[in-house]
């Protein structure tokens, strides 16, 4: 909201006050001031010119040649392209040498052969508004030759207050309310303002019926004898400074009262109203209303309408109807000043996308005693400009409302305890009084009377008063303190600990990169992976169509990252630890089941010649194996999965990860993606890749025992290294061969490592050769060549039993 210092000055003496300092004071005590700016600084550089003559340019249809008096005694000739320029106008003239916004310097020029000695400005050219359809015709009769700002009385500073910091302060939506704060901060008096109603006539008021609880009060003030007239320059200036374009007296007055007291109001032409007066009711299904902005609004039953008789004439608290627009010169008015409930106004204005200065205020719980003051204020201001207006009828005042002013007890000790500062009873009373609260001592306690302007949804309990004391005392004056108390170490969070260990191990030794991704997964991704049929927690208002689902598992989130990253890198190693949600496992209260998952993806440009142990899948298996081992899950195995296929994983090249004694429990999987996914995921063609993925359930892991592993005594006798190559049928798994070797070693064959895998015609079809490094070592004696020979003989026999043989 924009606050004009000149306007504030109507309510509190601001002489000698620096705008920047005032802004800081308000920020620290009241609400955040986001900006301090001099109002339209360029208005001091242009002067008031009087258009003496205007004639058509001989060589250009759209140009006029104007003769102006700019107070110098000489007539100035300016060529002007605006359609609205006319003799007799007072206009803003930038003479030769003036610099306008955008570093635009006015020069002598010749336009189609005619000399031009300056420029007549539009509002946009002066940085005043976006208006540039024509020149700015100055209101009233400002002094010719004077700087425009001075002549119009609009030399001003404007403070911009962050609206978000005003959501709980309806009283600050007008200058009077801000001035009350300023007066308290500066310790200067708030100047009196007479808002009492002028004398009213005895005629019957316009009948007002309120049939909806969404309107708590509706005041109708009849006004007669309103003539055409100018808005006073001082008021026009303040409206301009606060971003309102002056329109005509009635509109300007209405806006001024709103900007002054924070109370929206609306004038109707009384002659246009139906005989049975005003009805405030909710809309009917299918009803429509063309609002002032000429848009036809489709209404719903929750919308509140002001009706003339039964015909809608305004969208209550938001905008008037096109038909009810009061014409300049309308003599007989009905001034509406009402109090509408915040929620319906907010709902309607949000639904229609129609936020106005009026709706913004009603959303904040306005004081229901305010309409009467606003009506009086409007009437008195109007009388100042047009002394002949009369108020023929008594006041219509309908609705069911009560004064929210209340008394709140305040324990001064509690104030001191909560703020942590030794402020005296007298000091806190003075601070509260400075903003219009009345404080009475009541034994040890204080009783604080909260005026109605602060009592709607704002001040209701002791803590609210403590806030008032604290902010006016200034939080910056409160000394900092340290917490004290028993130091009890917090309980260990095993899941956090496990997740943090995984992160360190994966980002460290395994060189994976941690990513955090959105919890949303797109329908398109699910469709691609064949996960469309699962049930999901979904939001009903997604930001993007087709991205409403909350993920059940984390891993699919990584798949979409492969293609863009592969474009940049030959190798992509990503992991994420995150949550998934399962609606079918919802609690009784409706909370969906929550799972915690570690997801890994390893994707690499396909290489023509990869060693047997260098493929993505074995590498990722090794990463997972190392991870689990480092986490002290020592009993672990990878088991080829033969059960039901998973739509997005390779039907064969996938293993279950099992942890624990015996068969162990499944904690996840490592797998290649189904080869059919390469194309839809974009990792084919020039990005052709090998990809392996893994998913480990942290929940399942947490159920397994961890052990530090036992110590193996260091060998006492030397061992020796020996290599063996074994030729075996393809279908014999490597693990079986290892078992045969270990059996042949009788406990002395150690440190088995496969270092080569070979296939070739000389081995025969369906056979492969695996070469092992191993160490023969006993903990009872030094082994000899003889022991090696007998080991090889036993191995030979053992291999024979499974159709394999030693390769010489």
């Amino acid at each position: 909201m924009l606050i004009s210092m000149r306007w504030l000055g109507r309510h509190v003496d601001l002489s000698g006050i620096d705008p920047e300092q005032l802004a800081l004071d308000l920020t620290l005590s009241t609400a955040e001031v986001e900006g301090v700016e001099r109002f339209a600084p360029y208005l001091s550089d242009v002067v008031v010119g009087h258009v003496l003559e205007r004639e058509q340019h001989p060589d250009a249809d759209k140009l006029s040649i104007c003769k102006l008096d700019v107070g110098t005694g000489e007539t100035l000739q300016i060529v002007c392209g605006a359609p609205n320029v006319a003799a007799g106008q007072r206009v803003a003239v930038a003479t030769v040498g003036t610099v306008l916004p955008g570093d635009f310097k006015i020069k002598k020029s010749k336009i189609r052969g005619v000399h031009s000695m300056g420029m007549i400005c539009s509002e946009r050219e002066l940085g005043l508004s976006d208006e540039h359809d024509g020149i700015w015709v100055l209101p009233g009769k400002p002094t010719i030759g004077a700087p425009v700002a001075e002549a119009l009385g609009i030399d001003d500073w404007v403070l911009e207050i962050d609206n978000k910091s005003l959501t709980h302060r309806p009283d600050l939506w007008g200058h009077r309310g801000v001035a009350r704060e300023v007066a308290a901060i500066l310790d200067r008096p708030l100047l009196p303002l007479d808002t009492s109603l002028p004398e009213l006539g005895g005629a019957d008021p316009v009948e007002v019926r309120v049939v909806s609880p969404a309107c708590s009060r509706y005041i109708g003030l009849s006004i007669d004898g309103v003539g055409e007239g100018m808005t006073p320059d001082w008021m026009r200036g303040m409206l301009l400074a606060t971003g309102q374009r002056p329109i005509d007296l009635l509109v300007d007055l209405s806006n001024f009262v709103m900007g002054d007291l924070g109370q929206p109001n609306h004038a109707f032409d009384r002659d246009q109203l139906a005989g049975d007066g005003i009805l405030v009711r909710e809309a009917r299904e299918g009803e429509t209303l063309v609002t002032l902005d000429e848009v036809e609004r489709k209404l719903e039953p929750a919308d509140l309408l002001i009706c003339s008789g039964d015909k809608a004439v305004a969208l209550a608290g938001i905008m008037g109807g096109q038909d009810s627009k009061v014409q300049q010169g309308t003599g007989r008015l009905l001034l509406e000043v009402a109090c509408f409930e915040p929620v319906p106004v907010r709902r309607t204005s949000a639904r229609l996308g129609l936020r106005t200065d009026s709706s913004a205020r009603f959303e904040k719980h306005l004081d229901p005693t305010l309409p009467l003051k606003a009506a009086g204020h409007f009437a008195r201001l109007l009388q100042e400009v047009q002394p002949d207006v009369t108020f023929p009828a008594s006041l219509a005042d309908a609705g069911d409302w009560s004064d929210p002013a209340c008394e709140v007890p305040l324990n001064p000790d509690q104030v001191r305890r909560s703020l942590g500062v030794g402020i005296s009873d007298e000091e806190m009373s003075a601070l509260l009084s400075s903003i219009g609260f009345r404080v009475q001592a009541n034994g040890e306690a204080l009783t604080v009377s909260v005026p109605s302007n602060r009592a709607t949804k704002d001040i209701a309990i002791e803590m609210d008063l403590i806030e008032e004391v604290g902010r006016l005392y200034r939080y910056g004056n409160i000394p900092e303190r340290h917490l004290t108390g028993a130091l009890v170490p917090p309980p260990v969070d095993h899941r956090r600990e496990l997740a943090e260990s995984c992160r360190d191990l994966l980002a460290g030794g395994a060189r994976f990169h941690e990513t955090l991704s959105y919890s949303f997964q797109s329908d398109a991704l699910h469709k691609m992976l064949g996960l469309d049929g699962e049930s999901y927690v979904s939001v009903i208002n997604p930001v993007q169509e087709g991205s409403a689902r909350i993920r059940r598992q984390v891993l699919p989130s990584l798949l979409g990252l492969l293609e863009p990253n592969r474009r940049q890198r030959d190798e992509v190693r990503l992991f994420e630890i995150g949550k998934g949600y399962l609606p079918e496992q919802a609690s009784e209260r409706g909370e969906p089941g929550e799972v915690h998952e570690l997801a890994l993806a390893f994707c690499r440009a396909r290489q023509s010649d990869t060693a047997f142990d260098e493929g993505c899948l074995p590498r990722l298996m090794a990463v997972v194996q190392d991870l689990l081992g480092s986490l002290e899950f020592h009993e672990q195995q990878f088991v080829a999965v033969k059960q039901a296929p998973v739509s997005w994983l390779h039907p064969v090249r996938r293993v279950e990860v099992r942890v624990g004694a015996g068969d162990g429990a499944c904690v996840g999987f490592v797998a290649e993606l189904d080869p059919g996914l390469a194309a839809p995921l974009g990792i084919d063609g020039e990005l052709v890749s090998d990809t392996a993925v893994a998913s480990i359930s942290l929940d399942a892991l947490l159920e397994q025992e961890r052990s530090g592993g036992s110590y193996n005594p260091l060998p006492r006798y030397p061992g020796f290294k020996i290599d063996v190559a074994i030729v075996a049928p393809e279908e014999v798994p490597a693990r079986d061969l290892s078992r045969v070797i270990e059996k042949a070693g009788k406990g002395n064959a150690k440190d088995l490592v496969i270092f080569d895998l070979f296939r070739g015609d000389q081995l025969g079809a369906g056979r492969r050769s695996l070469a092992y490094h191993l160490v023969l070592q006993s903990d009872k004696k030094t082994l000899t060549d003889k022991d090696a020979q007998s080991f090889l003989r036993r191995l030979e026999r053992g291999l024979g039993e499974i159709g394999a043989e030693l390769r010489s």
Partner: protein
Amino acid sequence: MDKQTNLENAQARIAEASDQAVLADLERELLGKDGLLGQQLKEIPSLPPPERGPAGRAANELKAALTAGLLARAAELAEADLAADREGVGFDATLPAPPVERGSLHPITKVTRRLVQIFSSMGYHILDGPEVELDWYNFEALNIPADHPARDSQDTFYCDEEGRLVLRTHTSPVQVRAMERMAPPFRLVCPGKVFRHENTDATHEHTFHQMEGLVVGKDISVGHLVGTMKTLLRGIFGKEIDVRLRPGHFPFVEPGFELDARCVFCESGCRVCKGTRWIELLPCGLVHPKVLEAAGIDPSEWSGFAFGLGLSRLVMLSHGIDDVRHLLGGDLRFLEQFSC
């Protein structure tokens, strides 16, 4: 040639040996059976007996002299080799080897860890909670009733038409859950992912990370809040940071504040602080009595303060990241910059 000359020649050759290999050849030649010493030894049996003794001694002396010469030269050569090595010929400090490849931790993880460490050291519990949350915990129990603007669907992702289930809009619901099962006094922080219904661009994101904290105890005051926040900032930035509290409004605290920290990036105004020298960092306040009540804690006996810290914002501020979408974008070119 007399023996003396022979020895002198041999010593001269030893002295001239240019490297260890030449010296090794020379050693074989001089001390071998066909060498200088060998010949001298060979002559001994053919000498008359009385001369054999002196000849043997002479041979031994020769051997000793040659060996000493060889050893001395070997030592000289070794020293020369070391000296030559120390010359470091061909070394180019700027010639790169392939970089060490490492993995990386997400910057959010890193800042979370830093804060968790600070808070753990002050006895705070670190808590986790669901991202899909009941309306009660996200709103109702936090003094955000049904008609509150914060509940509008332009701010909140709703998971059902009844508005019973939402994507949490802050991590405060974790605190409510904690208050239900813990007895005061306690101190806790809840880091996590939160959601706001918002279209994304460089400065707006619908998913981000936060860490909210809560302290409940006897006579907790605004002074304690200020002291704690200053300790926190000292932990984050490694130096004393000036702060200021100004009024701010959040339904679950009363009084509520915005805490601004003195800009750490400039001395006289910069882009980050928009020239004000203050950075709006932490919404905070004393816990609203209604919030304590909703969680079953008696507000006449207990009080507390709460604060929220935008982790995403903190990461962006401290690394000068200009586009919030990088945080959850999963682009390796971004992630790699935070190697662990």
